[in-house]
Structures are given as C-alpha cells and as structure tokens.
C-alpha cells in the first residue's frame, strides 16, 4: 500500500520513559529532563506524528493537582482537574454562573473526561477556549519552579518561568460568564460580569488573546490589537462583527440574574 494510504491508526508510538513523581519537589527536579503529562490528549497526538520525547512525568498524582477547592472568595482549580470535573462540580458553577452552559460544548465527552485545564493552557493553542475565559475572569495562575511557588496574573501565562509547573488556576467567585462560540472558528467572545463591570476577550480573530473592559462595544474594539486575515475570515469581516458580538454579550450579561 502506498504510504499515503496507510491508516493513521497504524501509527505506533516510540518508547519513552515514564516517571511518576509523588511530591512537588521530586517533580520539579525532574522537569528539565521530563516534561509533564496530565491527560495526555496533546501528547498522544504529538507522539503519533513521531514526536516522542525520551521521558515524561505523570503529574496527576501530585498533591492538590486534581482537586477543586474553595478558599475564601477564591476558587482554586488544580492544574490536573479535567474539563469534566469543572463541568460537574457545583462549586464551579456557583462561583462562575453560566460556566456549565459553556463548558458542556467543549470537545466531546471523552476529551472532557481526559483533558485537563493545565494541559489546555500549556498547549498554548490559540483556538482553545480556556484562556479567553480565564482572561475575562481575571484569573490567577499558580506556578512552581526550582525557586519556589508564585501567583501570576493569567495574562503572564506565556511568560511563566522555563521549567515550571502550572499548579492551579485561581478564580474569584461572584462572576457571570457568557461565551459566544456561534461563529467559531472565525470569531468568538468570552465576557464576564462582576457587579456592574464587564471584562471581555475576543478569540480566533486576533494574534493575541487579551481581555479589556467592555463598557462601550466600539471603545472595547479600539483597545484590541490587529484583526487577523486568514482562511476562516477576513480582517474586515472580523472588525465589523466584533462590536455586534460585544453588544450582544453585554446585553445578555446585563439581563436580570437567571434570565440569561
């Protein structure tokens, strides 16, 4: 059979060494030579294309990595928490109203049961949905490296230290979320209301995902960097649609609670 006709399913994955650290210190020592694997959804895809690393470390058994906890007015979501855990844990929906409605559309039930939030963020794929939501939520990132553990604003995700582990995401309770994904993959908007202020992030339409206060849709668009022109849509179309999506998201968030 010609190469091109061999089913993808016959792709074999090359051997690698698997470490299973049980403490954070052990995991951090291993980081320079063994990258983390959490759900493994991304890794399997990379390895099927021939990118098997020499060693990986399973981080899902590290203390507090797969747990969701309320700490005062903050919610601490461990990095190895799966999409499914986010979806079914009532304290997540309690802290961020509307989250469940959005997250049941992510991937499919199997991906949601395996993929983790840390893996979703670290994959830094611009079409993924978690980063825009966390930006609009003004979340914090808990990261650890050899020099210790620190909390960074979520915008600093890409600037986190080399050889660091994402430990958790922290989200302040008392938010309402809408995420309009109806024009995926051309353009989407994640918007969060806290009391009377709204933060919104645009996705799939900008070189960089960034959130800005959404008081006036036109002003909000002015704060965004440049529109992308690609196979999914033109910059002109995106620039025209963005204020419309923003106005709709704002209107939904300003409805009386329960009506959205």
């Amino acid at each position, binding site marked *: 059979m010609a190469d091109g006709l061999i089913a993808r399913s016959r792709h074999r994955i090359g051997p690698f060494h698997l470490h299973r650290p049980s403490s954070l210190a052990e995991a951090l020592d291993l980081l320079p030579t063994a990258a983390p694997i959490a759900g493994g959804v991304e890794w399997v*895809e990379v390895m099927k294309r021939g990118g098997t690393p020499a060693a990986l470390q399973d981080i899902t058994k590290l203390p507090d990595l797969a747990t969701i906890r309320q700490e005062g007015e903050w919610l601490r979501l461990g990095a190895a928490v799966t999409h499914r855990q986010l979806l079914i844990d009532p304290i997540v929906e309690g802290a961020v109203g509307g989250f469940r409605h959005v997250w049941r559309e992510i991937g499919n039930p199997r991906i949601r049961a395996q993929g983790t939030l840390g893996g979703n963020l670290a994959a830094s794929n611009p079409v993924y949905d978690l980063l825009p939501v966390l930006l609009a939520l003004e979340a914090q990132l808990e990261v650890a490296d050899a020099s210790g553990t620190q909390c960074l604003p979520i915008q600093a995700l890409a600037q986190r230290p080399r050889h660091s582990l994402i430990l958790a995401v922290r989200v302040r309770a008392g938010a309402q979320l809408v995420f309009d994904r109806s024009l995926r993959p051309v353009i989407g908007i994640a918007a969060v209301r806290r009391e009377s202020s709204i933060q919104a992030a645009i996705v799939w339409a900008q070189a960089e995902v960034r959130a800005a206060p959404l008081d006036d849709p036109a002003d909000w668009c002015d704060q965004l960097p440049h529109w992308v022109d690609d196979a999914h849509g033109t910059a002109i179309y995106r620039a025209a649609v963005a204020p419309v999506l923003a106005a709709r998201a704002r209107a939904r968030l300003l409805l009386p609670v329960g009506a959205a």
Partner: protein
Amino acid sequence: MTQLVLNGRAVTAPADPQLLLGLWLRDSQGLTGLKLACDQGVCGACTVLVNDQPMGACHLFVWQVEGQRVETIESLGSPTRLHPLQQAFHDHGALQCGFCTPGMILAALALLRVNPHPTREEVQAALSGNLCRCTGYRPIIDAVLAAAEAMAESPP
C-alpha cells in the same frame, strides 16, 4: 506490569508506557469491537468505558487505566441473548455498516447507568461525541430511548 479489570476479569498488561489502550485491546486481547477510525479523539468509534465513563481508547495509554474497570462492547450480551440496547438498535434499524455501533452503545450504556430515564435531549448530549456516517441519528436516539424503557421493565 499494569493491572486492570477488563470486562470483569483481572488482567495484566505490559508496562510499556507507549502502549495505547485501543491497540492493546484490539491486537493483544482480540477485542476488535472498538475501531480505530479517526484516531484523533473525534469520531467515538474507539469508545470504551473506564469506571463507567466513556473514554477514547485511541488516545489513552494503558498505564492511565491502571487499577480501573475497563469495559468493551464484547462484555454486553451474546448473539443468542442480546443486551436490551443491542436488541433496541436491531429493532429500530439503528445501524447500517455498524462501525460506530459499539461506541454508540457504550456511550448510551454509560448514560443509562446514571440516568435510567433520560430525555431525548439528554440522549443527544450523551451521544454528541459519537459520529455516524450512514444511519443518521434519529433511529439511534429512538433505540436508546426504547432500551431505557425495556431496561426499566426488566433490568438486564
């Protein structure tokens, strides 16, 4: 070595970290009901149940299911005594080529275990990650709803 419970039996799988569950089930265990079709987590033909949860065997390593209960379509019914879901799929013309059927039935079984009386919308949501390219979804959803009724009357 990786210990797991496969279709109710304690079994041991090789410890190789690179071993994918789908390939091992098909090639070493002869359980060819699950299919490796898209091989990228989209189509659902490789669905198995891990501790009652539908999982994609094409993107899961064997070591990730250590100590867990794995169920494949082979654990359901027999040609002479079909499981109520299998019977309902048969009765409702819910399959043609049959490629997606093992995944559909396992996804439906997982739903019925936690929600024995689902609404049509709940069935739709539970099967939303399983793609069918010939029958179409209406007879499949009809079959799951009929199986739910049959199972409520006489549990399998």
